[in-house]
């Protein structure tokens, strides 16, 4: 019996401030799989994650989003978060007077396992000093990644979405970031092959050395252009700045006559 995918998008179209940005997105993430989202900047990768999380401003104009088979297209952000969906944003907002420690306290919810994990990674990432500081205020790119990933480690989501977790991270820290991501997706250290599910946006092949992904999807101009083996796609399409993919799409348009 085929297991139901954790997350499914069915013909999803999304508009941002009245402008259509994503078109007819179909995506299935099976249980235990991590998929990479690739593509040029401005193509709609971040919008896809924000839509799945339910942020306002990302209006689903067509299609539906299913989580474990349940239609969450119109669920609130809180509902989705409490179902186990989480996102590590690339540019999270600063909130005056709200400290990282308060958010970590809230999300660990007195769960001892989560508390221990969180404090372990707090010290490994040298983020203790940031606990009492305003969340996201004045952080470097690398610090924001660590802060976001820490929060996800504390949340233990069933489905994690990571928006360029490697951007602004120096080569030396990539291994640590990779470990944090693997922690987020790990179910049980004794059975590493069993993982939780999620999505990673990246441009970086080195990232995919640290975090193994099962499949990659290329999004260009708001359309799902291609899906396949992550390494193959990154090596062929990524190297050409996705010009290869763009050309491929142009060919499809003339041939099949998709809008």
């Amino acid at each position: 019996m085929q297991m139901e995918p954790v997350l499914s998008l069915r013909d999803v179209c999304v508009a941002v401030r009245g402008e259509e940005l994503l078109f007819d997105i179909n995506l299935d993430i099976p249980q235990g799989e991590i998929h990479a989202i690739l593509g040029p900047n401005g193509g709609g990768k971040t919008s896809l994650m924000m839509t799945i999380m339910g942020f306002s401003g990302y209006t689903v104009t067509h299609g539906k989003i299913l989580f474990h088979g349940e239609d969450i297209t119109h669920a609130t952000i809180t509902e989705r978060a409490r179902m186990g969906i989480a996102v590590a944003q690339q540019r999270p907002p600063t909130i005056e007077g709200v400290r990282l420690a308060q958010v970590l306290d809230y999300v660990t919810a007195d769960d001892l396992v989560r508390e221990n994990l969180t404090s372990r990674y707090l010290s490994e990432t040298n983020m203790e000093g940031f606990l009492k500081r305003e969340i996201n205020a004045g952080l470097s790119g690398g610090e924001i990644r660590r802060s976001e990933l820490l929060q996800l480690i504390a949340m233990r989501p069933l489905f994690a979405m990571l928006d360029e977790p490697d951007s602004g991270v120096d080569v030396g820290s990539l291994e640590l970031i990779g470990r944090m991501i693997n922690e987020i997706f790990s179910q049980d250290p004794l059975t590493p092959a069993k993982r939780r599910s999620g999505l990673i946006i990246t441009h970086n092949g080195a990232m995919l050395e640290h975090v193994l992904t099962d499949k990659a999807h290329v999004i260009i101009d708001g359309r799902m252009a291609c899906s396949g083996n992550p390494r193959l796609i990154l090596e062929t399409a990524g190297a050409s700045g996705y010009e290869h993919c763009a050309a491929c799409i142009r060919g499809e348009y003339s041939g099949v006559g998709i809008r």
Partner: protein
Amino acid sequence: MSQRFPDVNSYIHSDDLQPVVGDELHLETSDSTSLAEVGVLFHTGQPRSGTFMVRDLHAVCAYSEVPGLEVLPIATALAQYPWLREQYSWNLISPEEDEITRQVAEAAPEGFFLRVRAGEKISLPYQTALYMASANIAQRIHNIVIVEDGAALELITGCLTHQGVQRGLHLAVSEFYVGEDSVLTNTMVHSWGAEVTVRPRAATRVGRNGVFNSNYVSLRTGADIVSNPLTLLVGEGASANFMSVILAEKGSRVNTGSRVELNATGTSAELKHRGVSTGGQIIQGGLMIGNAACRAHVDCSGMLISHDGGAFIESIPGVRSNHRDAQLSHEASIGKIAPEQVEYLMSRGFTESEAVSMIIRGFLDAGISGLGAELDAAIQHIAEVAAQGL
């Protein structure tokens, strides 16, 4: 914001009543609940050095549990100490200053006299309550606090109506004397019924290297509060810190100012206003007057959550220099809650109202810390109430 003058004769006031002999302190549960909300505690083992309370029109409780701290009802103190009348009473504020002071001066005085003897540092806070347990009362209060040289006192003052009382009038004149090298921290929490008019008149004089800290939190603002305390930093190195946190709900008008005169070399003052309106009107003011080589800063910050029904926030921080070595600055901002902040917290599992409350709490806390458990709880309460007003 009009400055409606409250007419004492439309309330029950002290001239209407015979003095009550042996009026005992008897508190119902609802009294204790109201009092605890403003930081005035009546349980055994309370962390306080003593209690003074005016209930309605009479002092019902006046004691100190520690040596070095003397507490008397003001009338008793004025009768007992001629020097109090000569040197301190109506010394910082004139009875002729305005209608409010005239009304208080004409009344049989109620209120407290507190004196900390030189060199005595009182470790536990002293609590006072100016409490209107009945409706339609006009309280006219006169307080005098003297912290002698080298002494220290933390004063918690709760001004409130019983939860069921809607209408009343509270006129209060307070004179604070902070001696050389002494510290007075005055934490005041207000919680008023919806139709209460409040007119405090406070003045403070701070001696050489003395420190005056004034914290003001308004939980329920009542109909109308106008407050513009005067602080005179007269001794070299004297300093003052003011902090106010105000929630203005629908129908309330709060006008808080603060005038600080920095009159000696090395004096300094800082004023921080934080106001949240869920439908009320807030005017935040503050004027720092530099008359010597000194340093002062005013910081007004507001968050308008709802602009329905004529709600507004107006910030008027001011500085005036009469001396070339006075270093004075001010800032003001009125913001809103950004949706991306709320949604960011929601994506961590917070409900919308939990998120808004945490953001308001953060706004109120910004730059303010170490106010203690009572104020922490009060500020949290404001954040939660304000979040419901969104």
